[in-house]
């Protein structure tokens, strides 16, 4: 578990907004959406790290930066000790093979003009995973692995349901035998009943193939179910990270507590009307000074407006970025 495969330090990424001629003439400062504001974490071999947060908190940007679909503005991602940004040519292709991504939208992530066989054959042959003669057998194996019927091979994506398409996406990623899977909102576009199938498939594959998984999602219960460790993101920054049970049982950041409190409770007697976080998510174009959460935090005090808290240790492997360090697990918001 302690074998670090990916370590990310000080990741920053912003997307500039359109800055036209008139803006320039009238002297407006170019604006940018700050998607990642100093994100650091490590990913250990064989573990599942869940990344949770509201829409727009930078989860997907983080996932895309990890597989180099976006280039970072600042910070470094090291994969087995090598700086990922320095890779090019065959080395980069090798990195792409070993770190694969599964996409959120099962409807747009598969090329509508390619059959499953063509999609898988391409992945297998470009990375020379198998000699040409063995490819059909390997495709049969992959379909088996993701529990799709063998006759799926010669069908087009539009002939499948969302859950099946997501499994084709998984098969495509697994075709190149990666070590790390980055799953960006893998099941959020699927029906609840299908979500369970796909998630359980992922868990099963992880065990059988010894995969390391970065699981990006906004569904807390799902993340709790599958992750060894969880990182909570808010406005492009990890505000709390730790072992799943410690984080859920004794969260050390007011935002995590707010998220947990906001998750709908099935038992009506436990329902609470207490508001854990007030207001709306601030604009990522103008993130607040000091602590990013200070506009919505019920505990905010002077220091929170002046100084941005960094991640500090709260217990073994459990870190939070908050000036307050004495959250009582019993003082739950629920």
């Amino acid at each position, binding site marked *: 578990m302690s074998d670090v495969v990916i370590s990310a330090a000080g990741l920053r990424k912003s997307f500039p907004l359109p800055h036209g001629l008139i803006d320039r003439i009238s002297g407006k400062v170019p604006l940018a959406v700050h998607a990642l504001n100093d994100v650091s974490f490590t990913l250990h071999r064989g573990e599942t790290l869940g990344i949770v947060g509201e829409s727009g908190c930078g989860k997907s940007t983080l996932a895309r930066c990890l*597989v180099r679909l976006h280039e970072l503005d600042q910070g470094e991602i090291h994969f087995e000790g090598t700086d990922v940004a320095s890779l090019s040519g065959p080395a*980069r292709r090798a*990195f792409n093979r070993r770190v694969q991504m599964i996409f959120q939208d099962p409807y747009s992530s598969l090329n509508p003009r390619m059959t499953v066989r063509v999609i898988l054959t391409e992945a297998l042959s470009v990375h020379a995973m198998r000699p040409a003669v063995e490819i059909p057998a390997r495709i049969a194996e992959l379909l088996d692995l993701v529990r799709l019927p063998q006759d799926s091979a010669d069908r087009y994506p539009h002939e499948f349901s969302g859950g099946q398409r997501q499994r084709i996406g998984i098969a495509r990623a697994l075709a190149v035998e990666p070590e790390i899977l980055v799953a960006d909102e893998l099941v959020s576009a699927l029906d609840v009943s299908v979500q369970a199938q796909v998630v359980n498939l992922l868990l099963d594959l992880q065990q059988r193939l010894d995969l390391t998984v970065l699981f990006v999602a906004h569904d807390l219960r799902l993340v709790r179910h599958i992750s060894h460790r969880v990182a909570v993101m808010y406005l492009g920054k990890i505000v709390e990270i730790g072992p799943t049970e410690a984080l859920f049982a004794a969260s050390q950041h007011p935002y995590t507590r707010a998220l947990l409190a906001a998750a709908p409770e099935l038992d009506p007697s436990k329902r609470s009307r207490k508001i854990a976080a007030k207001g709306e998510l601030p604009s990522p174009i103008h993130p607040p000074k000091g602590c990013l959460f200070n506009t919505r935090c019920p505990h905010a005090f002077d220091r929170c407006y002046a100084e941005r808290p960094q991640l500090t240790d709260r217990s073994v492997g459990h870190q939070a970025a908050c000036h307050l360090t004495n959250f009582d697990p019993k003082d739950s918001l629920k």
Partner: protein
Amino acid sequence: MSIALYRTASLPRPLIFGGAILAASLLLAIFPSVFAPYDPNAFDYAALLQGPSTAHLMGTDNFGRDVLSRVIHAYTIDMQIAVFATVFPFLIGTVIGALVGYVGGISETIFGRIVDAVITFPFLVLVIAIVSILGPGLLNMYIAVGVVGWVFYARIIAAEVKVQKRLDYADAGRAMGYTHMRIIFRHLLPNAITPAVVYWMTDMALAILLGSSLGYLGLGAQPPAAEWGVQIADGKNFMATAWWISVFPGLAIVLTGLGFSLTGDGLAEVLRTKK
């Protein structure tokens, strides 16, 4: 769903009709002498300016040439114009458009200015200007149309590729470590090319019109070649007395144009991406 299945199971009607017209046109273009009753360039001074009759179904012109035979022989040249005046713009425009749409940024700006420069001039005027410089004749006409025409295809493809490259499957290709060329030409282009193919069909109809217009103006096919535009020009002095010399080649243009347009419509239906 059932409608979609029904439509894929049987070909759309426009495609059937359009395809039939084009197949017949191609047959006439390849084997004109089999179908033409007379030699298209043979003068018959015994039968000048005769109206349609059983001997000459479309009548004869002022040299006694059989109009039907000339219309049939003109298929060879006019179908050739339809293909050669459009296939190079189509290919060049597709490649450039795909690259520009994918790369974006400065290449897109430069491309945009080229498009602006070309579409500022009316198409026909620009082509006539280039043909006048190069000299009349079919080859120079193909060159002139090629120089101008690729822009329209490139614009269509660039816009479509720009949409496609933002979809997750393009990102999936990049995350797979595929080369940009593979992503552009194997993944994006098949999803982006349909509107260009449909436009191509329309453009072939327009190319026949253009070829005929240039033939009429004396800048395209040269007399005595049998070409619809040349024929219409030949008949223009006899419009009041011998309408058949110009009208029948005109109808041939309409019919062939209809064939291309219907085929384009039908292809749009068949090639539509299923979601």
